[in-house]
């Protein structure tokens, strides 16, 4: 068994864990981050993509709104390249209680969320596809944030400060010595190898899985996994984040992010964070709500649907709350020494991606206290790798980068404009045979054809690289197709149904992939 020693072991490679690892490494602590799958493959990679202004919470959960305000500003600075400055609108649509708008304005003022009312005509000029029957519109600094870019940038920064990042390493047990957690046993799920880590402090940042990890140390942490579904529409129906101006509910936000726009979300308690199926009823509900924001929404092409699981924690009444949206969106830091008499273990859970940096800061403050060191947090001062020049991501970037000689390179993924060179670089850099890892890195196969035209090309390129054998490459193809299919089959109607047919002819008819599965 391989063994590692470190000051801090961080469990979970979502935005929270990556943020903690970066913060700890920047404060000079020896840091190891472990993630059972790929980075941002948990809730962070399945969220809605909204960098909250705080507007959503101003009435329902003012503390959460207050947290968003400075964090929004900080992330725009340090993670500029991960963020598209779309701005956000809160609009009162016909079914919404018009009285909420005043509460909303008062809430913004009380919590410090910057807000400006726009004349309806101006809002409609900015967003021509918006429901023309809106009665009020408010502009707030919402933005779109790319989860993979953000988490990877944090990880790279942490690595630059000496941290080790172990993906596909699953924590199978925490190691206790008396009242103290002293490390963890890991399984490398790619090689089957076991790895032991000794750590002075263990940070449990495993999101909706935090209860499972805490239980390994004998601590009882009740996480209510709250499932939410989202549907990505084929193109940007809007260019600004659109929120309904009403008490937060289901399907009331449309986020333009990268090449798509995403409608969401729902909130349903599920017993197991690894089982979050999408139901037909939820899909219909999203499409209906979409129709309220953008008339004709149902005619637009849906690309894919998926679910994420909120890590919601409530100490006082475990198991009693049925509507998980009533639980505060603010985070919770549990010091298990104080709470359960178990030393050396902290759990950071709840919160949201918008506040991940703050969550990391308070967590690492507590880690330092445990270790008896005093080092200030600097994560709000130093930009993430790739964001140093302060320029935000913009939608046309990939298109622009292919000018002025567009035909000079082969494009592998046509929908997301990924060239062969980019793909090969990513395969080399990630040292992976998993096409889904590449998808998260490059958005491979995330466009309208959902891999129909690029995945067989990518498989061939993968196969030619570093002696990846045919069986491995084919296996990767099959699991990619399987994964995409999961997201497509609940929304098979209209244009996407036609696409699925063509893709099916390609893979079953021409390539006979069924044979590969034997």
């Amino acid at each position, binding site marked *: 068994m391989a063994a590692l020693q470190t000051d801090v072991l961080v469990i979970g490679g979502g935005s929270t864990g990556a943020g903690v690892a970066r913060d700890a490494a920047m404060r000079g602590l020896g840091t190891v981050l472990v993630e059972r799958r790929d980075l941002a493959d948990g809730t962070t990679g399945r969220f809605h993509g909204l960098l909250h202004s705080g507007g959503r919470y101003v009435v329902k959960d003012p503390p959460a709104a207050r947290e968003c305000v400075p964090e929004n500003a900080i992330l725009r600075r340090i993670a500029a390249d991960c963020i598209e400055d779309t701005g956000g609108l809160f609009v009162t649509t016909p079914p919404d209680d018009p009285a909420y708008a005043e509460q909303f304005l008062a809430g913004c003022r009380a919590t410090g969320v910057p807000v400006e009312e726009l004349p309806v005509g101006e809002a409609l000029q900015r967003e*021509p*596809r918006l429901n023309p029957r809106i009665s009020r519109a408010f502009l707030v600094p919402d933005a779109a944030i790319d989860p993979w870019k953000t988490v990877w940038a944090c990880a790279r920064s942490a690595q630059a400060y000496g941290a080790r990042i172990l993906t596909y390493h699953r924590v199978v047990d925490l190691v206790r010595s008396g009242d103290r957690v002293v490390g963890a046993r890991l399984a490398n799920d790619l090689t089957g190898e076991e790895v032991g880590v000794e750590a002075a402090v263990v940070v449990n940042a495993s999101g909706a899985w935090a209860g499972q990890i805490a239980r390994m140390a004998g601590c009882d942490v009740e996480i209510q996994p709250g499932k939410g579904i989202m549907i990505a529409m*084929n*193109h*940007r129906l809007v*260019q600004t984040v659109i929120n309904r101006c009403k008490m937060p509910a289901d399907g009331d936000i449309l986020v*333009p992010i990268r*090449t*798509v726009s995403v409608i969401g979300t729902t909130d349903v308690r599920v017993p197991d964070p690894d089982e979050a199926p999408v139901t037909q009823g939820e899909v219909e509900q999203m499409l209906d709500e979409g129709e309220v924001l953008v008339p*004709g929404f149902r*005619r*637009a*092409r849906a690309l894919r649907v998926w679910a994420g699981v909120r890590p919601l924690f409530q100490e006082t009444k475990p198991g009693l709350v049925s509507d998980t949206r009533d639980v505060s969106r603010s985070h919770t830091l549990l010091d298990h020494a104080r709470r359960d008499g178990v030393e050396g273990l902290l759990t950071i859970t709840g919160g949201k991606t918008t506040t991940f940096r703050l969550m990391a800061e308070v967590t690492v403050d507590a880690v330092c206290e445990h270790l008896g060191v005093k080092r200030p947090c600097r994560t709000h001062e130093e930009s993430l790798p790739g964001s140093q020049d302060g320029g935000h991501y*913009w*939608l*046309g*970037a*990939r*298109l*622009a980068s*292919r*000018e*002025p*000689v*567009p*035909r000079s390179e082969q494009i592998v993924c*046509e*929908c997301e*404009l990924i060239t062969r060179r980019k793909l090969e670089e990513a395969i080399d850099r990630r040292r992976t045979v998993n096409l889904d890892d590449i998808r998260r890195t490059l958005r491979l196969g995330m*466009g*309208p*054809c959902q891999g*129909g*035209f690029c995945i067989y090309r990518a498989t061939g390129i993968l196969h030619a690289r570093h002696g990846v054998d045919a069986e491995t490459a084919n296996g990767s193809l099959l699991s990619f197709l399987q994964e995409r299919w999961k997201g497509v089959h609940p929304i098979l109607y209209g*244009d996407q149904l*036609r*696409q699925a047919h*063509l893709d099916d002819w390609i893979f079953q008819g021409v390539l006979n992939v069924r044979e590969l599965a034997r």
Partner: protein
Amino acid sequence: MSSVRETLDHCVKCTICETFCPYSKATPLFPGPKYVGPQAERFRGTEGSPDYSLDYCSGCGICTQVCPQGVKIAEINSQARAELWEERGIPLRNRIVARPSVTGALGTPVAPLANLTLRARPARWALERTLGIDRRAPLPRFAGRTFQAWARRRRGPQAASGTVAYFHGCSTNYYEPETGERVVELLEHNGFRVVVPRQGCCGLPLQSNGDFPAARRYASRLAATLDAAGEGAPIVSNSTSCSLMLKREALEILEVDDEALRRVSERTYDVCEFLLGLHERGELRTDFQPLPLTVPYHAPCQQRGHGIGKPALDLLALIPELRLVELDAACCGIAGTYGLKREKYEISMRVGEELFAQVRDAEPDLTACDSETCRWQITHGTGVPSVHPVELLHRAYGL
């Protein structure tokens, strides 16, 4: 709300449009209809279009015609091009070639001089250097008179069985007034009173050169004129691209929201479409004399965009002894003003080569084609004179 943009959702990436686009085959600078249309459109946000290569789309519309899923590719490109120019500013050259009604009015009174100058080597060289209009490209000759002046003077026959309003377009007015005269005489021969309102440009060249605001103004002004003409009678046109503008493009691509335009769009007909309609109802005179000529016919891209088949073929087939050859090459390469431009002239000639070869193989006396710019290009590429189908009908009637 843009219905054109929404059609990008129908794309299944089948690549059929790519295999038909004559321009992406002719130059590596143009990445093709699927790329610049439904694909690139997903990357066009609030900053306009960052892909300059889209300007190499000619707007010929072939991609839209062949797409089995109904993606309005050429229209998406056209709208994106307008955004591109809105940001970069429209070059002077594009502004000039986009205003045939202005250049026509300026050139007509000084036609001999203008024609001489436009054919002189040093002048063409200067035009190329200053404006980027290729010195080899086919420029029309000013006729030195206008069709409007002829129409003003003309007194048609008193007795008429019906009325049509005639939309002649800029080229007929300034460069080929004789084609307009043929149209009027031919319609009168078939018993119609022909109303010719004073009219301006439809805005199409402005649209294809990316100046949408100006194009909208021209289109609306023309729609108002035509709406008032002929009391709801059919509007007939011999310019297939300008009539397509009225029928569809101004509404779809420019998104002109105008009741008069909607009314006009519903009563506008290509002249061959109109005549074939008469024939189908048994109302067309068929007293044609034999014309023993070999005439290859090219249906221009914009004509095909009407979705009316090729009525000229059926009409010309009525002429005894005419040896009609249907050409199936996609495009002559001129695409309005595309082939005039220095950076595009050679592409345009490469595109046209297949058509030119077909024309040469037919050993023709004349060629027939419905669009004026295409006729100039075909003559430029083959040396064979090219006429509008109405010219042949007019001759066969012996008018």
